[in-house]
Structure formats: C-alpha cells, structure tokens
C-alpha cells in the first residue's frame, strides 16, 4: 500500500507503532474475560479488583518490555489527550460492567417499571451497545483502529447470544474477551520477535 510521505503520516505511523505491542488488546480482552468469568463463577466482587490490578500491571509491563524495544516518545498534547481517552474507555468499560451488575440485581425486584422489563428481555443487546459503543468511541478518540473492530465484535457476539437461546452473558463475554486477549497475545509475541531489545544506551556510554 502506498503511503503519503507527509509529516502527518510520519506522526501517525510513529503513533500507531506504540500500539503494535498488543498490551492494550490484552488489557481490554482480560477486562471482558474477567466480567465473563465473574458471571459464570458467581464471584462478582473479583472483577473490579482484577481490573484495578490489571491496568497498573500493564503499564509496568509496557515500561519494562516495550520501551527498551521501540524507545520512549512524548507526543504532542493532542496525542497525549488520546492516551488519556483510551484509559477512560477502559474505565468506562469497568464502570458500565459494575452498573450492569447493579442493574441486574435491582431489575429482578418486583417494583421495576415496564421499560426495565424490555431492557431485561434484550439485556445482551443493551450491554453490547454500551461496551461496543465505548470501544468504537475510544477507537475514534484515540485514532486506534483495532478498537473499532473490537467494538463491532463485542456488539455482534452479544447480539448473536441474545438471538440464540443457548448462550448467556457470561459465555458471550468469556468468548469475546478470550478472543481479544488471544489477538493481543499474538500481537505481543510478534512484537517481541520484530523488535529485539536495544542495548543502545550501554553502547552509547561505551562509545563515550
């Protein structure tokens, strides 16, 4: 594919390189997987703890494994805001998940209004719209194209689960979270092979 060798393209290529490692994909996949596992196991309280521990661990992993391979860069303010937006997307995902569990508990009580009944009968589609929409919005805000695909995948999986009687939310989230995690792991392995660790600073010091 021919690329335009302009400054904008240079900047975008450098920006996209910071997503090649797949750690963001693994983080998103594990968040969805944790929700699925929590529903299937019944240990709902595990999910927020898992998410709270996951994001700092991923940042630490990125600092130890990614920076020595592709280097460190501080992008312009516009891009810095984009990084904050991706973190916000993960936070919204976690928050929406918590909200859904609370809603489920509340809506099973007898006093719930009629529209709640409709949402309850199309529960998976509503969740698919929230999480899929959050991922698509995050992909747009952060100029991170894979998030669009993940958003569509989440929505379609939950829509499919809603239409087929044999699946529930736990199974659907485990499947889609597992798939995104696997894609992330694949990208991560490819990244480690493509970008070997650069002992550059030590060479530089030796050269004086």
């Amino acid at each position: 594919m021919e690329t335009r060798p302009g400054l904008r393209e240079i900047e975008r290529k450098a920006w996209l390189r910071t997503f090649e490692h797949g750690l963001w994909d693994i983080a998103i996949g594990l968040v969805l997987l944790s929700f699925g596992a929590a529903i299937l196991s019944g240990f709902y309280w595990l999910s927020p703890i898992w998410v709270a521990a996951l994001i700092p661990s991923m940042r630490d992993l990125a600092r130890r494994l990614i920076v020595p391979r592709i280097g460190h860069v501080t992008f312009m303010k516009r891009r810095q805001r984009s990084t904050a937006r991706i973190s916000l997307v993960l936070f919204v995902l976690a928050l929406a998940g918590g909200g859904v569990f609370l809603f489920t508990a509340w809506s099973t009580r007898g006093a719930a209004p009629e529209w709640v009944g409709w949402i309850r009968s199309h529960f998976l589609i509503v969740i698919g719209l929230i999480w899929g929409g959050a991922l698509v919005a995050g992909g747009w805000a952060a100029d991170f194209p894979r998030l669009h695909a993940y958003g569509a995948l989440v929505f379609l999986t939950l829509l499919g689960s809603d239409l087929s009687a044999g699946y529930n939310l736990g199974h659907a989230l485990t499947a889609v979270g597992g798939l995104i995690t696997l894609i992330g792991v694949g990208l991560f392995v490819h990244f480690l092979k493509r970008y070997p660790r650069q002992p550059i600073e030590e060479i530089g010091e030796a050269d004086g």
Partner: protein
Amino acid sequence: MARRQGADGDLIEIDRVIHEPARLLITAHLYVVESADYVFLMQNTGLTWGNLSSHLSKLEAAGYVEITKDFIERKPHTMVKLTSEGRRAFDAYRRQMKALFDDLPG
C-alpha cells in the same frame, strides 16, 4: 547555509544542515513529537546507532536539537528534542522547498 539558484531565477536559501536526507528524516520525526529517545529515532528512521549519533551531533552543533541525559532506574537514558530554533529552521526549510517545487511547470 548555501545559496542555490531557484527554478524561477530567485535565489533560495537552503539549510544544508537539515537538507541532508538522514538529518531531514531525524528533524521530521522530531518536529511531529515533543521529544524522543535514541531507540525511538533509530526504529523510526532506520538509522544505525553510529549514523544517528553522528547526525544528531551536527544538529546539536547547529543549535537545532537539545540532547539531555538522565537515568531511569539507574540506566542511562538520552532524550532528544527539537529546539525552538530547530523548529523555526525546519519551518523555513519546508517553505523554501515548497516554493522551489511549486515553481515547476505542469
């Protein structure tokens, strides 16, 4: 700075410090970010450590880049940033080259 004959007969000043292909690549990458380290520049420009180091020295001598060394977890870490003078020089270079090529017939 060298003076070259432009296509329309005007004299166009071309900054040779930036004009050299490897240094143009380095300054273009530094222009679109706030700062970057050596590894980032190597990966994005395809230059070797020696080449990069040599060209950065020339850019630093011209006052176009600022190189700062610090330690992260007791390991040396070198960051490179385009100075405001370097940014101005790159802008001027872009304008000059655009003027030169816009002048071509057809």
